[in-house]
C-alpha cells in the first residue's frame, strides 16, 4: 500500500512537473520616458504594456504549439533621450536577453534605437512616436501602431478649412520635427482650400509663458489659432489665450487626457477647444474594447489613461497574435513577418484602418482613423471623423527613402 502510494505520488509529481514544463516565461522589454517632460506619454504607455501582459497571462498566456508562455515585462526609463534609449535597449537585448521591445513614445529616442535595431535579433514595436522617418527605413523587424503626424495634419487642415476659416495662426513646438511635419501637412491642405497660415510662433517643451507669442498673434487678428505641442505647454497656451481675451476658435494637436489638461487650465478655459488627432481613446469614441481598457486602467493605476496610451497596449496584443501565428518565440524573423500579415484583432483599443486587409502595411505602419474632438463641459467629445486615406498615404510612405 505504502509502495503504491509512493508510486502514485511520484507519478503525480512527474505529471505535475510535465505540466509545469509546458508553461514558460517570455520576457518582453519596454523602453519609454518614465521621467521628464515626455513622461505624460511614456508612463501611461509602460503601464499599458504591463496591463496588457497581465490580461494576456490571465487569459492563458501565449500558446505556441504545446507550450504556453506567460509574459514578464521589464521596463526601463529612456527619458526620451537618444543615448539613454540606446543604453536601455542594449541592456534589454544584451543583458536581459529580451527579443521583443515595446513602448517608445518619443521620436528622438525611437530614431536612435531604430538606427541599429535592423542588425539585432529582435522585434521593435513603436507606439506614440510620430516621426515619419521611423517607418521609411525599410526595417523589417519594426512596426508602429501610431500613424505619422503628417497623415493626421493633412486631415486637420481640410477640417479647419471646412469650418470657414481663412487666416490661421500657428503656435507650437515647431522645433520638434513631428509637430513641424503635422503643421506642414496642415498648411498644404489648408492652402489648397484657399486658407493661409499667417503666423508660425514657437514655444519650447519647457516653456510655460506663451503670452508674448499670443500677444503678437492677437495683433494679427487671425480667424483661428492652431496649437501643437506636448500637453502642458499646450494647456498653458489655451489658458493664456483666454486670459488675453482671444475669442477665436482654438484647434490643437496634443493627445492629452482631460486630467492632464485640467492640471493646468480650468474646464471653462478649455471650453470649445478642438483636438484634431488620430481617433485615440476617449470614452465617446471608444469601442467596447476601449471602454474596458479605460475602466481597467483607471482601476489598476488610479488615474485615467492618456488617449495615446492604447498604442502600447495594442502592441502587446499584436505581439501575442503574431507569436501565435508564427508558432515560435525564438525566430524573431518569423514573428516580424507574422506582424506584417496580422489582421486587426478584437482586443485592439484603437480603431485601425487596415491596408490590404492587414493591420500593418508593407512599411510596418498601422493607421487609425483621424478624429475631431472638442472640449465640452469638462470632457473631450468625439464630434466627427476626419477624412483619411490610409492606402494612399501608405503608398506615399513607400515612395520615401
Amino acid at each position, binding site marked *: 500500500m505504502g509502495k503504491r502510494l509512493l508510486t502514485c505520488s511520484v507519478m503525480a509529481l512527474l505529471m505535475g512537473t510535465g505540466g509545469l514544463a509546458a508553461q514558460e516565461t517570455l520576457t518582453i522589454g519596454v523602453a519609454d520616458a518614465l521621467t521628464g517632460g515626455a513622461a505624460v506619454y511614456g508612463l501611461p504607455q509602460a503601464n499599458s504594456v504591463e496591463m496588457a501582459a497581465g490580461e494576456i497571462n490571465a487569459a492563458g498566456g501565449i500558446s505556441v504549439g504545446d507550450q504556453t508562455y506567460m509574459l514578464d515585462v521589464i521596463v526601463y526609463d529612456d527619458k*526620451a533621450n537618444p543615448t539613454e534609449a540606446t543604453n536601455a535597449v542594449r541592456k534589454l537585448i544584451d543583458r536581459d536577453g529580451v527579443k521583443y521591445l515595446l513602448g517608445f513614445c518619443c521620436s*528622438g529616442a525611437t530614431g536612435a534605437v531604430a538606427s541599429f535595431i535592423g542588425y539585432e535579433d529582435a522585434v521593435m514595436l513603436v507606439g506614440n512616436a510620430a516621426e515619419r*522617418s521611423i517607418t521609411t527605413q525599410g526595417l523589417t523587424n519594426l512596426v508602429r501602431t501610431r500613424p505619422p503626424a503628417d497623415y493626421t495634419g493633412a486631415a486637420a487642415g481640410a477640417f479647419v478649412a471646412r469650418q470657414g476659416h481663412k487666416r490661421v495662426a500657428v503656435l507650437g513646438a515647431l522645433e520638434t*520635427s513631428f509637430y513641424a511635419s503635422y503643421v506642414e501637412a496642415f498648411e498644404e491642405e489648408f492652402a489648397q482650400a484657399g486658407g493661409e497660415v499667417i503666423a508660425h510662433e514657437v514655444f519650447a517643451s519647457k516653456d510655460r509663458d506663451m503670452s508674448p507669442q499670443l500677444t503678437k498673434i492677437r495683433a494679427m487678428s487671425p480667424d483661428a489659432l492652431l496649437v501643437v505641442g506636448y500637453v502642458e505647454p499646450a494647456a498653458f497656451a489655451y489658458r493664456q489665450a483666454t486670459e488675453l481675451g482671444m475669442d477665436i476658435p482654438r484647434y490643437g494637436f496634443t493627445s492629452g487626457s482631460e486630467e492632464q489638461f485640467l492640471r493646468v487650465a480650468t474646464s471653462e478655459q478649455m471650453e470649445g477647444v478642438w483636438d484634431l488627432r488620430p481617433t485615440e481613446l476617449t470614452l465617446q469614441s471608444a469601442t467596447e474594447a476601449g471602454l474596458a481598457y479605460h475602466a481597467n486602467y483607471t482601476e489598476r493605476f488610479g488615474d485615467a489613461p492618456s488617449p495615446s496610451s492604447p498604442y502600447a497596449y495594442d502592441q502587446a496584443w499584436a505581439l501575442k497574435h503574431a507569436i501565435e501565428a508564427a508558432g515560435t518565440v525564438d525566430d524573431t524573423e518569423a514573428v516580424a513577418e507574422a506582424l506584417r500579415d496580422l489582421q486587426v484583432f478584437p482586443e485592439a483599443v484603437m480603431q485601425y484602418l487596415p491596408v490590404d486587409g492587414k493591420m500593418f502595411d508593407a512599411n510596418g505602419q498601422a493607421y487609425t482613423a483621424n478624429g475631431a474632438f472638442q472640449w465640452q463641459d469638462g470632457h473631450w467629445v468625439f464630434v466627427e471623423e476626419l477624412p483619411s486615406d490610409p492606402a494612399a498615404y501608405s503608398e506615399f510612405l513607400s515612395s520615401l527613402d
Partner: protein
Amino acid sequence: MKRGNILLLIVLMLFVALPQLITVKYYLHLSILALIWVIMAQGQNLIQGYTGYVSIVQAGFMGIGAYSSALMSTNLGLPVSATIILAPLVTALFALVAGYPSLRVKGHYFAIVTLAFNMVIFIVLLNLTDLTNGEAGLSGIPKPGNGRGATIDFYDRQVYYYFVLTIAVVMTALAAVIVRSRVGQILLAIRQNEDLVASVGVAAWRYKLFAFVVSAMFAGLAGALYAHYQSFINPEIFSVAQSLDAILAVIIGGSGTLTGPVIGAFFVVFLPEYLRFADSFRLILYGLILVLATIFMPRGIVGLAHDLKTRFGSAR
C-alpha cells in the same frame, strides 16, 4: 621601471583584456561610450583643470564634430576615416571664432559666455533642418571600414572598442605631452595667477585660446566617434546638460590630473546605468552622489587616492 609606469601598463593591459573579461555585451557598449567620454573629458580638463577656465560648451563642440563628420560622410561621400580626422579641424574653426570673444572675460563670465555658445549651437542644430534634419536627427550614419562582414568589421562592437581605445590612449598621451611641455607649464601658471603671467611678458590670451581650441578638438573627435558608433545623432545629445556632465567627469575624477578624466568618464557613464534599479529615484540618487562627492572629494577620486596613499605611507 618606475612604479607609476608599471601601474599604467597594468591598467592598459586591463583595458586591452576588457572585451574578453566582459560576458555581457551591454557592458562593452557602455565601455565604448565611456572611452569616447575619456576623450571629451581630457579636452575639458585642458581648459578647466589646467588653465582654470570652466567651459560649458564642450557638448556643443562634440555636436559640431558629430554633425560635421556625419554630414561629410553621408552628403559628400568622404571615407569615414577621413571625416573622423577632419571633424576636430572643423570644430577647431568654430572654437577659434567662439574662443576669441569668450576669452576676453574671466571666471563666471567666461562660464556664462560658453554656456550661451552651447545654447546657440543647440538651437542652430535644431533649426537648421535642411542640413541637420532638426530634432528628428540624422540616422544611418556609416561606420568606418568597408562595411559589415569586412575583414575589420567596425559593426562588431569589439572592433569598435579597440578602435576607440586606441584613439583614447593616443589623445590621453597627447594631453600628457601638452601639459608637460612649456605650453602646459604656462597654462598652469595662468591657472595660478594670470596677471603674473601677463606681467612677465607672456601673451596669456594666446595660450588660453590654444587650450580652448585644443579642448574643442578633443570634443569634436569624441563627437565624430560617437556619431559613427551610434549611427544616429540629434541635438538632444549635445545640450548643456551634457556639457555639465563633462565638467562633472573632470571634477569627480580629479581636476588637473591626467588620470582623473579617465576615471570621471567611466563614472559619468556607468553610474547612472548602475542606478537603474532605483527607477525614478535614479536621478535623485545620482545627483546626491555627485553633490556629496564634490563636497567631500573636492580633488576628485585621484585626489582621494593620493591622500590615502600619503596617509598610509606616513603611517608606515
